[in-house]
Structure formats: structure tokens, C-alpha cells
């Protein structure tokens, strides 16, 4: 029998790892050349990358930027490889703003986009001072006025109505949640009603900003407007639907379940056709609901159903103990949701919500099917159909892909930053 007893007399000090186990050499070895087969694959992969670049780079570097039609491009290139990027420079305004937005008014959407950065910042980066949210609150009305123009009374009335509703709700919320909600809705509608009369009475023939009709909007601007509006509307609506689906009240639960299941079961394109053609049947004959608004409603309803399901997943992932702890401390339902349940459920749902948001943003190109001239609509319609640029597919669609990629990649990077920022455990 061997002696099994062992006593350590001194503790071992820490040592540096062996030299060939650190740095660049180690990285290359483990990742690119770990075995014979992997080394061969690495070399093959580099060759494929070379082939792709060797063909694509001359297309970029030999590209033509200054001609005014495809045939001129071909003359300049003389059979050499090169893209005809002139279409982008020559039709830049159309690609970005559409072909009907008045050229001398481009500064208005530009300012709206610039202000969007300031409005979105405090929402996206919550370390910024909370007072900046005041600007976020008025931004939609400012942006509406800038882009559509017309009498300033319209956005002011809309804002006053919502402000009044908010103040009434805050005033009576403590006493009774439901009654406060109803009172707020009543106040908003009566303010809008009165405001409508005042706007009609005071409207001058020559408003400060020239009005621009919704059908004159177009280009990537239209995609951005639809994307931003629909994402920011569908997240709160999705949260409400997800909570409604969990409700103990059969009526609320039933309405939410039917809504979500119906909307998810219908293709977006169908809903858009409904918006463009059929929705008119549901309104009184003399009511004209703006096409942009109808499309916004449909896309918002569509994506809110998806977001609701994503958030339901987040809610289901929370341990029951979180609800019980909130209850045991005496928090009521709105407080428990606001401070305990939703912050955690939304955090879990971030990847899913971003997935829906990115999908939504790209789906805004579907409006080209109902003859709205968004970026893709502009390319397919006025630009490719024109005599000068008939046939320039790669450059135009590549440019559209690039614009969408930049925005979607930005959203994706933001969401990853957000996930890291919200991580409170040490993993």
C-alpha cells in the first residue's frame, strides 16, 4: 500500500504562459493553419477572395460618375470594365427625395432629419439628461410641420390635444386608472375638435411653409419616414398587446389574441393593398384619410403583432418570483410592470425586437407595389423607365442595398451596445 498522504508545503506562484501560446503566431496557428486540411482551406479561401476583389475593384475604380446617360457611359468606358455610377449623381435628388418633392424645399426634410438625431438621442442613450426628452416629445409635430408644411395650427392642435390628455391623465391617474384614461381620450378629442375649427378659421392662403402633399413624398426619405414612424409606434403598441394577451380579463385577452393571430396570418402586402384601395370603404364617403397615414397604420399594426409575440417571450422568461416579489412589496400592477417586469422582459426581448425593426424597415420598400415612389419605387419606376438610364441595374440596386445595409447595420450595432450596457450580472 502506497502512502496516500500529501501536504503542500509552499503555494505555487503564477507563471507567464509559454511564448508560442500568445500573440499573432498563436492566433494564426489555431485559427488558420491548425491542420493540413485547414491550411489548404485557408489558401483556397484567400484565392476566392482574391478572385472576387480582382473583378469587383476595377468595376468601382473604373466607374464613371459624371455622364448624363447610359449611352454616354458606354462611350466613355470604351468596352473597359467600370460601373456607370453617374446615375447616382445625376438622379441623387430623386433617389433621396422622390421626383415630386419641390427642389427648393429640400432643406425642410434635411432639417427634420438633423433634428431627428437630437430627438432620438435621449431615447436611445438613456444616460443623457432626461430633460432632453421634452424635445423628443415635440419632435413629431415639428417634423410633420417641416415635411408637409401647411398651416402651423395643425401640428399645434395635435400637440395641444395630446398635452391636454397627458395632463388630465396625470391628474386623475392616482385616483382611478381607467377613468383617467377615458377622461384623457375625451379631452384629446374635444381639443382636436375645437382646434380643427380654429385652424379652418385662421388658415391663411399663404402659410409660412408651403404645403406639400403626401403623394409628393418619395425616395429614401419616404423609407426613413415610414421606418422611424412605424417602429416608434409599434413598440408601445406591441407592449400593450403583449400585456393584454396576459390579462386576466377575458375580453381584453380575447381581443389581443384575435388581433395578433389575425395580423400575423396575413401577408403585409395584402394589408398594404387594403390600405391603398379598400380602407376607403370603411371611412365616411367625404373623409379623406391620407395615404401615408393609412400605410403607417397598416405597417404599424403588422409589426406590433410581431413585437407583441417577441415581448410575450420575454415576459414568459421572467421567473414567477419577480412578480411575487413586486406583489409582496405592495407595488400595484402599473408600478410592477413599469419598474420590475417590463425593464427585464424588454431587455430579454431586445434581439427579437431589433429583428422585427430591421425587417420592418426593409419592408417599407413594399409600398412601391401600391404606387408610392420610395427608393425602390423610384428605381423601378421613373429612373429605370427613363430613356437615359434604362438598363443600369447593378449600380442602382447596389446603391439601394448599401443605404439599407448602413441603416440596418447601425440598428444592429446599437442593439448589441444596448445589450452590453444593460448587462448587470458578471458573465
Amino acid at each position: 500500500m502506497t502512502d496516500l498522504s500529501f501536504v503542500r508545503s509552499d503555494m505555487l506562484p503564477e507563471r507567464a504562459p509559454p511564448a508560442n501560446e500568445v500573440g499573432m503566431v498563436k492566433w494564426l496557428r489555431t485559427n488558420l493553419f491548425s491542420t493540413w486540411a485547414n491550411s489548404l482551406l485557408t489558401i483556397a479561401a484567400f484565392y476566392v477572395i482574391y478572385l472576387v476583389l480582382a473583378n469587383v475593384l476595377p468595376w468601382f475604380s473604373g466607374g464613371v460618375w459624371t455622364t448624363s446617360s447610359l449611352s454616354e457611359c458606354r462611350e466613355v468606358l470604351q468596352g473597359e470594365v467600370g460601373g456607370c455610377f453617374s446615375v447616382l449623381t445625376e438622379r441623387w435628388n430623386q433617389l433621396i427625395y422622390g421626383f415630386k418633392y419641390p427642389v427648393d424645399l429640400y432643406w425642410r426634410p434635411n432639417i427634420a432629419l438633423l433634428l431627428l438625431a437630437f430627438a432620438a438621442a435621449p431615447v436611445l442613450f438613456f444616460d443623457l439628461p432626461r430633460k432632453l426628452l421634452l424635445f423628443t416629445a415635440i419632435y413629431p409635430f415639428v417634423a410633420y410641420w417641416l415635411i408637409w408644411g401647411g398651416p402651423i395650427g395643425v401640428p399645434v392642435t395635435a400637440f395641444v390635444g395630446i398635452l391636454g390628455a397627458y395632463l388630465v391623465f396625470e391628474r386623475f391617474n392616482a385616483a382611478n386608472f381607467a377613468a383617467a384614461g377615458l377622461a384623457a381620450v375625451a379631452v384629446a378629442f374635444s381639443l382636436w375638435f375645437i382646434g380643427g375649427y380654429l385652424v379652418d378659421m385662421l388658415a391663411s392662403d399663404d402659410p409660412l411653409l408651403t404645403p406639400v402633399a403626401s403623394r409628393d413624398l418619395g425616395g429614401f426619405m419616404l423609407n426613413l419616414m415610414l421606418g422611424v414612424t412605424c417602429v416608434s409606434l409599434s413598440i408601445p403598441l406591441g407592449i400593450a398587446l403583449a400585456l393584454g394577451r396576459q390579462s386576466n380579463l377575458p375580453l381584453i385577452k380575447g381581443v389581443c389574441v384575435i388581433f395578433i393571430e389575425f395580423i400575423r396570418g396575413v401577408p403585409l402586402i395584402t394589408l398594404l393593398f387594403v390600405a391603398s384601395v379598400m380602407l376607403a370603404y370603411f371611412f365616411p364617403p367625404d373623409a379623406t384619410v391620407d395615404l401615408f397615414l393609412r400605410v403607417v397604420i397598416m405597417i404599424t399594426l403588422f409589426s406590433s403583432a410581431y413585437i407583441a409575440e417577441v415581448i410575450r417571450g420575454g415576459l414568459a422568461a421572467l421567473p414567477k418570483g419577480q412578480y411575487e416579489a413586486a406583489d409582496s412589496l405592495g407595488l400595484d400592477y402599473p408600478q410592477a410592470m413599469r419598474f420590475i417586469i417590463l425593464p427585464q422582459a424588454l431587455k430579454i426581448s431586445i434581439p427579437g425586437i431589433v429583428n422585427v425593426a430591421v425587417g420592418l424597415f426593409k419592408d417599407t420598400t413594399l409600398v412601391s407595389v401600391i404606387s408610392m415612389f420610395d427608393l425602390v419605387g423610384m428605381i423601378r419606376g421613373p429612373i429605370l423607365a427613363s430613356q437615359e438610364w434604362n438598363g443600369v441595374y447593378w449600380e442602382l440596386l447596389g446603391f439601394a442595398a448599401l443605404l439599407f445595409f448602413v441603416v440596418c447595420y447601425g440598428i444592429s450595432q446599437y442593439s448589441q451596445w444596448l445589450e452590453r450596457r444593460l448587462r448587470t450580472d458578471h458573465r
Partner: protein
Amino acid sequence: MSSITLDHHADRSKMAVSDEVAIEIRNMNKWYGSFHVLRDIDLTVYQGERIVIAGPSGSGKSTLIRCINRLEEHQEGQIIVDGTELTSDLKNVDKVRSEVGMVFQHFNLFPHLTILENCTLAPIWVRKEPKKEAEERAMHFLEKVKIPEQAHKYPGMLSGGQQQRVAIARSLCMMPRIMLFDEPTSALDPEMIKEVLETMVELAEEGMTMLCVTHEMGFAKEVANRVIFMDAGQIVEQNEPEEFFNNPQSERTKLFLSQIL
């Protein structure tokens, strides 16, 4: 079962039981679906009592204390906490919950809030206290459970024992008149069980009314003025700890004690 011995011996002279009723449970019955979990429970708890509820798993002891702040609903009988009867009236339920603190087996701290925010959230929003005041009291209780230096960390960065002490501090910040403990040490390592139990002993010495579901019989002997033994949804035996452990009456109790001691 329990091998934890407490260094700090409870000073029973400070634990006075008044004759003011804190909780009154009359003829209470509860079902989960068709399963009869609690049967004809009658229990009067006086202000200042420290009651340990013991029993095999599935005997309904957790359900009983969860009924006291209506995390579970009872179907028959009455539960009156500090003069307020628990009914489906949410106002009463919220009133009782703000006076009754609860500590859970799995701590249930809010992982997205710092320790200090965990402790101040309910005082600020339920008791409508100014933030500064709530923070001062939170720090006071965090010092009492001996972890003031962790105030700005998140729960995920703390050990289990520390988390459970935060959970106790969080409940205390609501200034409850009654504390419920639902197996507060069952999810902890032995070293940590001790630090949590010692916190609970100190709380008892300050005269807090406590109902504690636990398997820590050492704690029961040290602190409790009454031990309740439950089985199959009913109270089988209750007595002063000394009598309960040395001279159990029912066969069921004897069997249970022989298995755990």
C-alpha cells in the same frame, strides 16, 4: 438535518409577546384546483411572536404563509392581518402587503436594479417617500444586515447569503409590522445559512413579529416562542419549542422529528 450552530445566542428577555393580535386566521381552506392544500386552518398570531412552521414538503406550510399576504388566494374562511381582512378588494390586499414583509427562498431580488434601488423602489413608489429619506433608511438597514459597501452593486454580483440579507433589508425598508420567511436558507451553503440566520435572530430581538417556514431547528430552538408542525394541509401540533422537541405528542410529529434531528 440542521447542523448549523449559532454563535450569537438570542436574548429572549428582549422578545416580548404582547396580547395585541397581529394575524387572525379562522377556519381557512384552500384548494389548488380540486386538491385540498389547506384544511381548516385556525391560527392567531400575537404582536411580537416568532413562529416557526415545520413539516414535510407538500404539507402546505409555504402555501399558508403565502396566503397571509395573498400571493395565494384562499377559498373559505377568514384571514385578518392587522385588522384588515383579505378579500378580493385590491385596496385591502395592497394595504396588507405594504405592512407585511416577505423573504423568499430564491431571494427574488430585482436583477436590473442596484442593491440600493432594490431597497428604495417600494418606499418611494408605494409609501411615497422622498428619495433622499428612502435612501437614508435603506443604508441604515443595509448596515444592519452588514453589507452597506455593496449598495451600488447589482444582485448578480453578490453571494447567495448576501443576496438574502439584501432581501431582508429590502423588506424592512417598507417598515413592516410582520415578516414572513419562506424557507429563507434552503437555497444557501452552510456558511451563508449562518449569516442569514444571525440577521434573523437580531430581527427577532428587536421584537419583530415573524412567521418562518424553515428546516433550521437550531433557529427554532433559539428564537421561536412557538413551533407549528403541519402535515397534509393541517396543523398537527403546536407548542413551545422546548416541549415540541422534547415531548412531541402526535405520532406524525415524532416520526418527523426522528428523521430530521
